[in-house]
């Protein structure tokens, strides 16, 4: 039944997808969490009120979120070229992936942190905690379950984004499904890649949910 599946190719594609998704998820978290924190604390009446930063970050985040992902990929070709010298391959694909996912994730982190009762933050201030201390020991830990589930959602989006990025040269399961499946009239190849993507999403969601439940003490 799987006689027309090139398992070697599928294996390569799977590792490429893993490569893209893992790296871009890591960078999305590295960028998205500080941006999300910034979007909360620079808001009016918060820890570090600063209208200029608040508006600027908000504007950047909204702009990136408004551009459809596939357009973003094309827009960012020059950036990949500049930074990596190429627009092809999994590493080059992570740049538009992060650019698409980090602003989305920043909003999720923002929402997670805003959920924290203001009284709790005030209690820390009253005890003489500095801003840095409050961010590290109150905002992040208290919002952690939601920050983790947000990252799960983002990672799932990154899997589907990575499949799209693959088609314009990133490699991975998306590209293999398209080139060796769709364009080569090889349905078995097409559906094998599709099923693997679905499986990947299920696994990521399952692990993310498990971790979030584990750390949620509410």
């Amino acid at each position: 039944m799987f006689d027309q599946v090139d398992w070697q190719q599928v294996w390569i594609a799977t590792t490429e997808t893993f490569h893209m998704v893992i790296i871009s998820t890591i960078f999305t978290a590295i960028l998205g969490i500080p941006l999300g924190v910034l979007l909360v604390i620079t808001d009016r009446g918060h820890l570090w009120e600063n209208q200029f930063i608040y508006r600027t970050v908000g504007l950047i985040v909204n702009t990136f979120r408004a551009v459809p992902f596939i357009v973003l990929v094309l827009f960012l070709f020059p950036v990949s070229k500049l930074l990596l010298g190429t627009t092809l391959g999994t590493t080059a694909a992570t740049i538009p992936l992060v650019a698409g996912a980090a602003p989305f994730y920043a909003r999720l982190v923002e929402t997670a942190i805003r959920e924290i009762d203001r009284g709790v933050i005030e209690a820390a201030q009253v005890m003489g905690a500095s801003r840095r201390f409050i961010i590290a020991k109150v905002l992040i830990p208290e919002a952690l379950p939601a920050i983790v589930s947000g990252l799960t959602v983002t990672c799932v989006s990154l899997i589907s984004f990575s499949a799209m990025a693959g088609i314009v040269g990133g490699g991975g399961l998306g590209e293999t499904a398209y080139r060796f499946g769709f364009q080569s009239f090889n349905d078995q190849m097409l559906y094998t890649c599709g099923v693997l993507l679905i499986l990947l999403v299920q696994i990521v969601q399952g692990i993310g949910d498990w971790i979030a439940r584990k750390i949620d003490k509410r």
Partner: protein
Amino acid sequence: MIQLNRVSKTYLGSKHNEEVVALRDISLTIENGEIFGIVGHSGAGKSTLLRLLNGLEKPTTGSVMIQQQEISNLDNESLRQVRQKIGMIFQHFHLLWSRTVRENIAFPLEIIGLPKAIREQKVTQLLKRVGLIERADAYPSQLSGGEKQRVGIARALANDPTVLLCDEATSALDPETTQSILQLLREIHRDMGITLVLITHEMGVVRSICDRVAVMEAGQIVEMGFVEEVFSNPKHPVTQKFLQMEMHSQDQLISIELKDGFEWANLVKLAQDYRVSLEIVSGRIEAGSKRQSVVIRFIGQEADIEKARAAISVPSRSRG
């Protein structure tokens, strides 16, 4: 010593430019080691006054001095130093959900950068002090209200403060738990000689713990003095009303034969309509059954309790 000298506080309304005057020209001295109560209706300015004491709010005019230090002029760093010596507890506790009881109490000790070994020692001491040693590894979501407030108190005491501010610390608790928390505060005051400033809207709390009391109304202190004097000879109408409310407040157990078709939902409405709080002590309310007998505990004004009782019980036939 805490000194407020001609303090006013005006908030700017968020939308239009209307101003909210929260405090008007308040002067007040609280001695070291005193237990000072502040009562007043909602919106009188009690919380605002308390928040001036740890610099959460700055006065619009006037000065706030704690142990000879002007709070409103301090830079961030010195303000943080001063705050470490002023504990505060809250109506809704404001504990960290992600930390155990032990870790919550350790929080202020982490702020001052105490080494871990000393921290643990101190926390164990505090846990014993508030009677929570068995619950040390529980999370706040697993605690009762009274236990949460005990954690709040331990946390507030961790840095050996000289002042403890309590903003309606017992308002979310039932009468019995309130008493046990007040008892704890009394013991802490006795052992540490700490200054206690507490806000409440229950005169009972003032009577049972305070040395002096200030009554607030519309941003001003309308009456202030030693508790015995104010209670035996209240001068201002607001004080008189607060005392009246306390005197007529009753705690009654009444056994009732309920009207047919009475349901749980009616009970909630009853409490709101007659401004009483009630609790079923024995018996059950089941939908659809007739003439159910229950014993209900009512807390509220005598007249309100009577009306509420009449509204739900079967008229007694014996009275003709």
